[in-house]
């Protein structure tokens, strides 16, 4: 479904992704783990078009993403929940959700999608008229995810959904991610919380300073000496 081959991305002179290759297949949960500054967010931004690869191949369902305008990538079926949630804090919960469906024209479908999101996150329904800037961190995470689901994506990119959340909420969010996946959405999950990420993912890639250093089945990786030492605290 999603294929990256030898992708190089730069911020000016900084070489942030150094020939990265990985793929995500239909129906999977794939996780990208790594420490601060490894290039995880950069990878997601490259997929959703906020950044452009200098060289390398980037395709989604066989289509070259590198030439598609960032605002049109959503229409291809990729939705990105950015690091730090980035909800529109000056707008209400419902306005945020509506913006998530910006490219959709089917009124009935949008209504349906809002219902679906409320089903996943009942808390959002209770707070639908609240200005999002006043939501708690956890609620903002739910809103960011709900907003991304409004476009009915085939592939959902999640950047550190557990960041700054209490353990119980992290568990809840991860079980919802599983639920979203079970209902047919493929997921690419970026996490620093390697333990949680490996526990729900089918496969994983380990990123270190812009390069993929390990990859494989998440259970095997979780059991491997290297990963346990570096990312699972022994």
């Amino acid at each position, binding site marked *: 479904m999603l294929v990256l081959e030898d992708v190089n991305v730069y911020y000016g002179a900084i070489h942030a992704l150094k020939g990265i290759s990985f793929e995500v297949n239909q129906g999977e949960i794939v996780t990208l783990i790594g420490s601060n500054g490894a290039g995880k967010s950069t990878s997601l931004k490259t997929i959703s078009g906020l950044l452009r690869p200098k060289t390398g191949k980037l395709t989604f369902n066989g289509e070259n993403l590198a030439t598609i305008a960032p605002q*049109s990538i*959503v229409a291809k079926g990729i939705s*990105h929940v950015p690091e730090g949630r*980035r909800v529109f804090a000056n*707008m209400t919960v419902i306005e945020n959700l509506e*913006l998530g469906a910006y490219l959709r024209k089917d009124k009935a479908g949008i209504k349906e999608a809002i219902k679906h999101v409320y089903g996943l996150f009942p808390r959002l329904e209770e707070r639908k008229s609240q200005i999002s800037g006043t939501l708690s961190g956890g609620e903002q995470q739910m809103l960011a995810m709900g907003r*991304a689901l409004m476009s009915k994506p085939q592939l959902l990119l999640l950047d550190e959904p557990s960041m700054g959340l209490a353990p119980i909420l992290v568990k809840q969010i991860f079980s919802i991610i599983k639920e979203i996946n079970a209902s047919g959405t493929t997921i690419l999950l970026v996490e620093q919380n390697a333990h949680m990420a490996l526990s729900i993912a089918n496969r994983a890639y380990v990123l270190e300073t812009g390069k993929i250093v390990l990859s494989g089945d998440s259970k095997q990786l979780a059991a491997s000496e290297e990963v346990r030492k570096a990312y699972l605290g022994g």
Partner: protein
Amino acid sequence: MDSISTQIFQQIINGLSLGSIYALIALGYTMVYGIIKLINFAHGDVMMVGAYSGWFAVTVLHLPFLPALLFSMISCALLGVLIERIAYKPLRNASRIAALITAIGVSLFLEYGGMIVVTAQVRTYPPVFPDTRYILGGVYFKYGDIVMLLTAVVLMALLHFTVQYTKVGKAMRAVSYDKDAALLMGINTNNIISFTFAIGSALAAAAGVLMGVYFNTIDPLMGIIPGLKAFVAAVLGGIGIIPGPMVGGLMLGLVESVVSGLGASTWRDAVAFLILILVLIIKPSGLFGKNVREKV
């Protein structure tokens, strides 16, 4: 009614008329600032072009007031989009000061380019309204004043509705808050920025036409002082916040006409800029602004 209170009412009417013009210009300032964080110093000059387009529509095309107003608004909407695409868009990732200097350049270009096209000569605005006056309790309501106020109020209401309830309005708010996040929603941010310039410039054009009607004369440098005053109004209300400049503009208009009414009309401009200085010192975010809202 005794003469002092009629005097006061008369000044309030005058102040509101003038203030609604400031408010219209200030709205454009604040919209553009809200969306690309640029103080568009050419905004007052777009108003001047609007005044001339209106003049052209009335005297050459012989259009009545409303069609002339529309003609002027549409011409300036196009001008605004052109200015944004040619002068500001290439600088979107440049430093703010570079964009600001460019805006001053555009302003000078319009002023002195305008002089070449229409000459520096002051022109008389044709009387578009009948000279009817209504007297209510000793206070004069000129037909023109009423139309002006109404026009301004209708345009502001339309703007408020657009920004608050339409899809494109929501997109404008999204882009002004976080461009990358807006892109992720599938919003074409370039189009939304152009649209914002179009609306802001159309409002300035409307203000230009009303200005011509109000003061009877227009000239290529007529945009400078009202442009600065509208900037004061925008800062007073809180730049970047939609209802702010409306109130800021009306207040400024009232203050000015009260100062004039007290017989100190030479102090009018000084008072306007004194307000700017005071606001910047006491509450830089304006009357409606929250002090410092940094995004994390």
